């Protein structure tokens, strides 16, 4: 496999010269983005199926065998729908908003490692880059809400902005704990730091368990998923920030939300669940483990949606500011102190 890659790089370099590097990078970007798009499509089907079975229904089963072609039918339908730009809207920002929502959630994948050394950009400050990229996603939502020139959309945008900014702080502090434990901001090195002879006992899940919970719940809040989907809140503000969007423009918001979900699942697996490392020492590490962990966390996302009723807004703010942020700050101090003692074995 490695030899084949070397031969490919050599022939490419001979053939294209200095143009080879950008071409090869674009090929690699495609190799990451296209599977994500496929995963997003089938995550929507999985969501409908899983929630269907949880509510003793069957879910989509008409298009293709077991409804497997349903996401494609949905995509084609959205593609052919007309994009209506409201006459009172700010045209340029209205079109820009869905792009601003999707772009950061795809850009973040540049530093996500899929296996040992398999990463687009082996950045030293990978963790910081991720935090910066995930914090940019909120612009798409705010701009969409404001440019639509609609009360419902604006309310949704304002709710979402306050929510995402609040939960980002708790998320950042949870990642500071990971940073302390691994002493590196490189995601590949964070996974390597969880390698050891005891399998899953070496993962940061054990010493940082409260942070794992905080990160996961904040992740649900960051992606505006139920039970924290106040930004959409169908029963109160119709569809929130994207109420005026139709066709592909709406589909881009949808893509961004699900791509963010998959990203959060990947990051949780990498930071706390040992990434591609195997949970038991006698089975080799592989990409399959990472996929299994990611699928489990995505299942949790769907499970939450089927189980919990929507939070009230003041309760959401209380959870973020008065529970999560103090908890994470205390745990940073606990971990920093713990690491100075011989009891720290990770």
């Amino acid at each position, binding site marked *: 496999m490695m030899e084949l890659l070397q031969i490919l790089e050599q022939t490419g370099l001979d053939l294209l010269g200095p143009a080879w590097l950008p071409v090869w990078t674009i090929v690699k970007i495609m190799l990451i983005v296209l599977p994500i798009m496929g995963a997003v499509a089938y995550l929507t089907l999985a969501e409908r199926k899983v929630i269907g079975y949880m509510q003793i229904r069957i879910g989509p089963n008409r298009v293709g065998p077991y409804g497997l072609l349903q996401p494609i039918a949905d995509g084609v339908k959205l593609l052919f729908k007309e994009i209506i730009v409201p006459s009172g809207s*700010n045209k340029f920002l209205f079109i820009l908003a869905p792009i601003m929502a999707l772009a950061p959630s795809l850009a973040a994948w540049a530093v996500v490692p899929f296996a040992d050394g398999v990463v687009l950009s082996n*950045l*030293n*400050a990978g963790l910081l880059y991720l*935090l*910066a990229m995930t914090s*940019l996603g909120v612009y798409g939502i*705010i701009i969409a809400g*404001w440019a639509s020139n609609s009360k419902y959309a604006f309310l949704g945008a304002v709710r979402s902005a306050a929510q995402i900014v609040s939960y980002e702080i708790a998320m950042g502090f949870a990642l500071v704990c990971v940073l302390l434990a691994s002493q590196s901001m490189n995601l590949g090195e964070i996974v390597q730091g969880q390698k050891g002879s005891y399998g899953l006992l070496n993962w940061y899940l054990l010493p940082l368990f409260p942070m794992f919970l905080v990160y996961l719940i904040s992740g649900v809040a960051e992606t505006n998923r139920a039970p924290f989907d106040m930004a959409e809140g169908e029963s109160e503000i119709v569809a929130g920030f994207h109420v005026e969007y139709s066709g592909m423009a709406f589909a881009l918001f949808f893509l961004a939300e699900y791509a963010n979900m998959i990203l959060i699942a990947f990051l949780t697996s990498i930071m706390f669940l040992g990434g591609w490392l195997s949970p038991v020492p006698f089975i080799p590490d592989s990409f399959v483990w990472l996929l299994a962990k990611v699928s489990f966390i995505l299942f949790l996302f769907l499970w939450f949606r089927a189980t919990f009723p929507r939070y009230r807004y003041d*309760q959401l703010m209380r959870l973020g500011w008065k529970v999560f942020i103090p908890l994470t700050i205390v745990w940073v101090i606990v971990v920093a102190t713990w690491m100075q003692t011989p009891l720290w074995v990770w």
Partner: protein
Amino acid sequence: MNFETIVFYVFAALTLFAALRVITARNPVHAVMFLVLAFISSSGIWLLLEAEFLAITLVLVYVGAVMVLFLFVVMMLDINLVRLREGFWRWLPFGAALAGLMVFQMVWVLGSTEIAGGVEAVRHAADYSNTKELGRLIYTDYVYPFELAAVLLLIAMVAAIALTLRRRKDSKSQVVADQVAVKKADRLRVVKMQAEKPAAGHPSASKE
């Protein structure tokens, strides 16, 4: 002209353009968006100087948090553009004099002999970590100034909260602790009763 220089000029031109549009844009929301663009392109210039920690932190703190709150406030304002523009010509000489003074200062500082030829960025090996180096400096050589700055920020934060916090006697509020401590038994009563069935053949006349 190598690739790096081209990238620098692109980012520099973008920063200047965005900064200019911040003060000339008619719509305040557009002005805020141009300020975001200015931050992002200046973080690109910092990346060229291999200061990746500062560059990413600029995006994380200013673009990701500060400007979001800024946008939040600006969007809620009902800004009258005509009233905002009145008095423009009256204040122009004063503003121009101030701008001239600032330009003079900058030329004076940047034109001095030591840095007149430009400063070459220090090159480092690929495994050099800007973040580690910065952290080491802040917490050893510059620990007192750093702690002092942190305390200053804390004071400003406490003061801002203290100034805006007003307690109204007549406003109603929830006791969250009581709400959280609520048990199922406090709210829900399950009544067990036998299943009843109307008499066979007389569905409507069960009362008789």
